[in-house]
């Protein structure tokens, strides 16, 4: 019979020494560059923090596809996608500053605490130099704050709340996606042209920060053109059956229902509204109308035929005919067999923009990267000429107003673009009341 020499205390001691040994090079590396997670000479690690489980897992999967495609293109693989149409020619398909791009992934679960934990793990354990991704404003705001503290650049994924670049903006955080204000500003003229300026609106709003800012934006822009807001009702984020909220709408004196809902909430509330006959109803001598301020093709698919004829806005759509969009759709479609979503597009673009900024700055130092991104003007990435405004780190570009297509050609052909609203029409001053509070602060390089 043999006797083991291992003791519990011995194993613990060895484990702690080994962990400290493994952590040390990471720490030294950080000190070397003067900023957190300075990469070595051969490769650089990016952290893709997307919802891989939970209600937005399908959007997360599409974001991850886009990130993998971007990494492939940055490393010189594939057809190069939008790198060939990008107005900046800094990227050459040789990685970032000559280092091969590698990546790690985290699962946000669309929960702020889980998203912060996975981002922290990618920064501390995997040495990620930049964190990007997400499909919810709550998550984006939480991870952005973490990256600010850690001295890491955060390139936001799909986040539409004004707060991300408003009261919760951070110097280390950047958003390419559009926001609630822009949706309101783009939608209002189209709604006025389609439905007139004598309308009474009833808002159902998801009870969290994105819902509040979207309602505020749509309400103020529609009221400015003469619409009256009859009622605004907050609905719980966990609500699945909206019948109790929809049923009183027809008797409220309203003739337009605005659904400030996203994801599963949007699918269910829109489906319920159609079931209750709102599409066929008449109120105040006019046809009753429904508006969905933020559309997503993936979500529109869940609502099926109910989206037909309903107006909304979107950041990007695969049917755009500019060279950048076409190149991206060709790359993505050839690799995966279906067109990319707006979430995939913004994530792909954010990765290229980060890589380009590092290359132009000649450094991975977050402060140098931030400086390169601030007030950077570019084109060829699918949204026309775009400005990354330095004051709030928000991109300003054209916004698409879309409508549920009446006769779709195929399962991806759910939305049609009715207007490309020029960037000037959706641009606002950085101190606009809807973005009040909070300050960008100063860039944190960490270490």
């Amino acid at each position: 019979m043999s006797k083991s020499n291992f003791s519990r205390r011995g194993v613990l001691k060895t484990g702690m020494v080994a962990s400290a040994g493994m952590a040390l090079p990471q720490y030294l590396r950080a000190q070397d560059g003067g900023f957190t997670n300075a990469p070595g000479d051969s490769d650089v690690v990016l952290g893709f923090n997307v919802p891989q489980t939970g209600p937005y897992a399908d959007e997360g999967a599409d974001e991850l596809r886009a990130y993998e495609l971007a990494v492939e293109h940055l490393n010189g693989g594939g057809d190069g996608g939008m790198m060939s149409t990008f107005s900046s020619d800094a990227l050459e398909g040789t990685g970032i500053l000559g280092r091969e791009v590698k990546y790690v992934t985290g699962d946000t679960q669309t929960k702020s605490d889980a998203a912060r934990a996975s981002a922290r793990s990618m920064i501390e354990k995997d040495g990620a130099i930049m964190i990007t991704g997400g499909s919810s404003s709550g998550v984006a705001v939480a991870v952005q704050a973490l990256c600010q503290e850690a001295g890491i650049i955060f390139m936001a994924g799909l986040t539409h709340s004004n707060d991300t670049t408003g009261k919760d903006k951070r110097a280390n955080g950047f958003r390419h996606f559009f926001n609630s204000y822009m949706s309101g500003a783009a939608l209002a003229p189209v709604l006025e042209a389609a439905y007139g300026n004598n309308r009474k609106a009833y808002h159902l709003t998801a009870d969290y920060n994105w819902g509040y800012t979207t309602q505020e934006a749509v309400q103020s822009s529609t009221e400015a053109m003469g619409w009256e807001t009859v009622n605004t009702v907050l609905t719980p984020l966990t609500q699945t059956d909206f019948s109790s909220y929809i049923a009183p709408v027809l008797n409220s004196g309203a003739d337009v229902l605005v659904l400030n809902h996203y994801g599963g909430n949007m699918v269910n509330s829109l489906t319920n509204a159609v079931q209750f006959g709102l599409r066929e109803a008449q109120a105040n001598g006019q046809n009753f109308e429904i508006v969905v301020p933020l559309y997503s093709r993936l979500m529109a698919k869940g609502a099926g035929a109910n989206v037909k004829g309903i107006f909304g806005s979107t950041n990007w759509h695969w049917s755009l005919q500019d060279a950048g969009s076409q190149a991206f759709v060709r790359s993505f479609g050839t690799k995966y067999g279906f067109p990319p979503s707006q979430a995939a597009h913004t994530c792909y673009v954010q990765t290229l923009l980060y890589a380009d900024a590092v290359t132009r700055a000649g450094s991975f130092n977050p402060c140098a990267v931030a400086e390169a991104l601030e007030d950077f003007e570019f084109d060829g990435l699918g949204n026309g000429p775009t400005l990354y405004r330095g004051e709030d780190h928000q991109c300003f570009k054209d916004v698409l107003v879309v409508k549920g297509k009446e006769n779709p050609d195929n399962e991806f052909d759910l939305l049609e673009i009715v207007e490309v609203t020029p960037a000037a029409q959706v641009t606002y001053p950085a101190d606009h009341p809807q973005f009040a509070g909070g300050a960008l602060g100063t860039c944190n390089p960490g270490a």
Partner: protein
Amino acid sequence: MSTYVENPSGTLKSTFLTLAFLFAAFWGSFLILRTVIGFSSGDNFSIQQYILQILNGLDKGSAYALIALGLTLIFGTLGVVNFAHGALFMLGAFVAVTVSNLLSLSHKVVDETRTDFLGNPLQVEVPYMYDLFGQAAGDVIIDWAVPISIIIAIPIMVAIGFIMERGLIKYFYKRPHADQILVTFGLAIVIQEIVKYFYGANPIPTPAPDAFVGSFDFGIALGFQANEIIYPYWRLVYFFFSVVIIGAVFAFLQFTTFGMVVRAGMADRETVGILGINIDKRFTIMFGIAAAVAGLAGVMYAPINSPNYHMGMDFLVLSFVVVVVGGMGSLPGAVAAGFLLGILESFASISQVIDMIPGINQIIIYLVAIIILLTRPRGLMGRKGVMEE
């Protein structure tokens, strides 16, 4: 559980009393709501709005009642607190999704006149049903996928119930309730992750047949203005369907020998066993029936809200509250509490009520549960002694 009907005049009297109580409750609660809302907000709360919220509560209550009925059957017979019951509801909805997908199975035909998103010739999907039955008949079959799913869902859900009970849950009969909750909750998570793996996380639209699309105008039927009380046809179908299912389960337990033995087993399992009756076998069948009830509730719910992998969890917690409020082990209690809480939740969602008490729509059911547990731990119709120790 009640016994065989022995006193028809007594039954008539209790039916009359119940109807009188419901009538008084209807008008009483309306007058209270009208007064409170009028007093606090100045709004005139109309009888039309009131009827609309009752209808809303009835259809929501139908789903609660069906799930709670199955939960109570399992708790009453097997003594198991089944946290996987919501997953059975979700599986039922996905039977409808699967049948709908199967009936819509198609092959591709290249249409040279149109192009896809990459500019290649468009491949148009042609359902096999068109090839088999022609386009008109094929469309009708695909359109009626959800009602067809009911027939298919019954054996599937009974089989899933058997497998669940024989394969896992029977090993936990003699274990504490905490163990049962943990294992069934774990099972629910496993089931929903499997569903998500195959069907994705996004909701999948599963529409009702075209014949049931649209709404019925109660307003005109009751002498009010048009559009004042409209209610979707399919939700009415759901309500009547749940009434039929609940009635069928009660009749099965009340008027069959099998049901009599099960009720005897629920009252005193040991004595029934001493009499030489294999009560375990019957209880397994009851588990299958409970699974089928939850599954059918899910099938019929699919057109109301597009099914997603998480829908079972959304209903599970509320259904447990329904069981506790109704009285653990009481079938009539589960049904009554299902409808009652559905209606209460509906009233709590009226915007004037939310304005008065912010957040009431999110807590009303739990508030009722707390009050019931504090004042009457056995629940509204629970047996004396159960949950009161």
